[in-house]
């Protein structure tokens, strides 16, 4: 019976495992953490429908209760080899050895380290937080400045670590814009009297319902959008942030004081994706993500026969696309297995 080894138990890995197992394929799912879900574990609500991230995660986890799926939690692959018969040999950190006919890389993304945008003062100024940390605040239904006060004015900064040559990231992380809109609405629900700004370069509302959500954020939730990239932030005596942007639609520099600044941190190729690329000789795209063989027709195939990629290992994706990509990868793998 054919066997597939999946490296990475985030949403893509879980969904692909489920789809392959349903087709009668044996699946070995390797996840370095002690639970599956990956970055989804850090999220509270999903856009655009505000579904609980936990609910989706639970569905994905439940699907893994399948006789054809073997879970290897807290495990990392060591040096992977492809033998003469075309089988993949994957030694794990506990000394066991997996053998499979095909390999699926679903090692996902990592969050941009906001400290690299030094001028934004993350890690230095106490009321600068990331969008990931904000999700955690939503989880606890409490938005507070470090001194315990309720913020009266909040700024959400788009494109932190994305579309920025200064941090060597030319790419768009794609879902920060809609995350910003979603988080602005969630903030408004918790803080009806707080002034909330989004500072953006472009609003890239690419998914179904996204543009509508943006519109609603403006009209119903009174979120203010300023087209201008944050130039620098500094802390004043009250631990507020004094920011400088250009209001590009007015054509003037704009300065204002914020009680809290939220950085919409972008996505970068994860360490795991880079390790897999290194050990398997996979081509990387200029943005550091794993390069698909073809962007349209063979988007789950890599340059190595039998090695496939799904989810954010190959590009920044939202969950809708990640799950669809995982299903698509499962089909490509089925096709491959039939052929060998």
């Amino acid at each position, binding site marked *: 019976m054919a066997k597939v080894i999946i490296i990475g138990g985030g949403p893509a890995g879980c969904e692909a495992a489920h789809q392959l197992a349903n087709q009668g394929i044996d699946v070995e799912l390797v996840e370095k953490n002690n639970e599956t879900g990956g970055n989804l574990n850090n999220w509270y609500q999903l856009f655009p429908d505000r579904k609980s991230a936990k609910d989706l995660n639970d569905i994905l986890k439940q699907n893994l209760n399948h006789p054809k799926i073997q879970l290897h939690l807290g495990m990392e692959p060591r040096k992977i080899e492809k033998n003469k018969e075309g089988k993949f040999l994957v030694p794990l950190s506990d000394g066991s050895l997996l053998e499979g006919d095909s390999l699926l890389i679903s090692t996902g993304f990592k969050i941009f380290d906001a*400290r690299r945008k*030094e*001028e934004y*003062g*993350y*890690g*230095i*100024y*106490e009321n600068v937080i990331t969008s990931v940390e904000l999700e955690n605040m939503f989880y606890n239904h409490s938005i507070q400045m470090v001194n315990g006060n309720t913020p009266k004015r909040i700024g959400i900064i788009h494109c932190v670590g994305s579309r920025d040559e200064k941090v060597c990231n030319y790419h768009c992380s794609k879902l920060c814009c809609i995350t910003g809109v979603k988080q602005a609405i969630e903030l408004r629900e918790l803080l009806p009297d707080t002034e909330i700004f989004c500072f953006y370069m472009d609003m890239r509302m690419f998914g179904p319902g996204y543009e509508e959500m943006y519109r609603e954020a403006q009209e119903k939730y009174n979120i203010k959008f300023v087209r201008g990239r944050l130039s*620098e932030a*500094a*802390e*004043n*005596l009250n631990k507020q942030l*004094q920011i400088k942007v250009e209001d590009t639609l007015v054509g003037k520099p704009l300065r204002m004081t914020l009680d809290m600044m939220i950085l919409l941190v972008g996505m970068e190729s994860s360490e795991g994706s880079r390790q897999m690329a290194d050990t398997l000789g996979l081509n990387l795209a200029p943005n550091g993500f794993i390069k698909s063989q073809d962007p349209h027709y063979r988007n789950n195939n890599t340059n190595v026969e039998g090695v496939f990629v799904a989810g954010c290992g190959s590009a920044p994706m939202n969950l809708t696309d990640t799950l669809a990509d995982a299903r698509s990868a499962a089909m490509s793998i089925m096709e491959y297995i039939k052929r060998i």
Partner: protein
Amino acid sequence: MNLEGKQQIWKDYQKEIADDRYFYARSCIRQTFFPGSEWAYLDIMKNKLAKDVIDDPRHTTCTGIGYHSDIVPAETIMTVVARHFALMTEAGYENMTPSCITSFGIYTEILETWHHHPEVEEKIREFLWKATKREFKKPRNLAHTSDIIYKFRNEIAAQAKYKLVDVHTGRPLRGVDHIGCHYSKMFPTKGIGGAEFPAVLSGMIYAWGGDVIDYPERRHCCGFGFRQYLVMANRGYSVANSKKKFESMQPYEPDFIVANCPGCAMFMDKWQYTISEMEGTTYGQDGYGIPVLTYEELTALVLGYDPWEIGLQMHQVSVEPLLDKMGISYNPEAKFKNIRGEDIGVPKCPTYLRV
């Protein structure tokens, strides 16, 4: 503010600074407006730190003022700088240490240009040879003189006669560190601590017992663009930059400002007078201004040099409030006397700024 966050950034931006044997390049502005500064630097280097520094009288301006005001072409300034390198090479030195931030920026920019365009370097070598029959080696190490003081800040602290502490209350003195734009904004990796949170001056302040003020306009330029302030009609927006900084730092009640760029120090000192005359505003305590020091002057004060010997009487803003806080004794009578005890004349009293 979380200091550990800054320390992380400082770790990322360290640079190699030579230990000894420096070729010194003076600054046009520093020796004009702060006449004791460069003398104090050389004296400290030679007599307190026992370092070998050569101050070659044949060396000239780098022509940065002319270059930045579109009078001196790029090839000309490169050839002038090449001549400085030639003087350094002829003297048997390899470590170039300019006193001026404009010069430091220009030297850095020229070396980078030559690195990426060797054909330009070749052309300049030819120009220098035709003009002077000189040849040169590029410096092995280029550091601003404030980098040198930063490097030896702990050795200086060990010899310190005074600390940056208010002797009456024990409170660390609050210093504003103002970094010249061309120290690291053009090449962040060439500055200690980078461009956003430079550590070169704050490192000195911390090492000598003081505290550093991180005020919102800390990174803002003082307004000293050559082609701006040189033209009278443009000075209004030049001075507006310093004013913006003073307004932003004033709530923190700074005890002093220290700058590593001679232009910034001059501007921030003189503009306090200008603003007071134009608008009646002063930024220090009790009608005084905020004392502005070059880092050489600050170092010299910490090491116990006489304030008048290092030229502090030439400042527009009175330094006496700072001297009193540091517990430095000085003779008020001697302020406007030369070393022979003769009167050098007393400046006219400003209308609003207390002196």
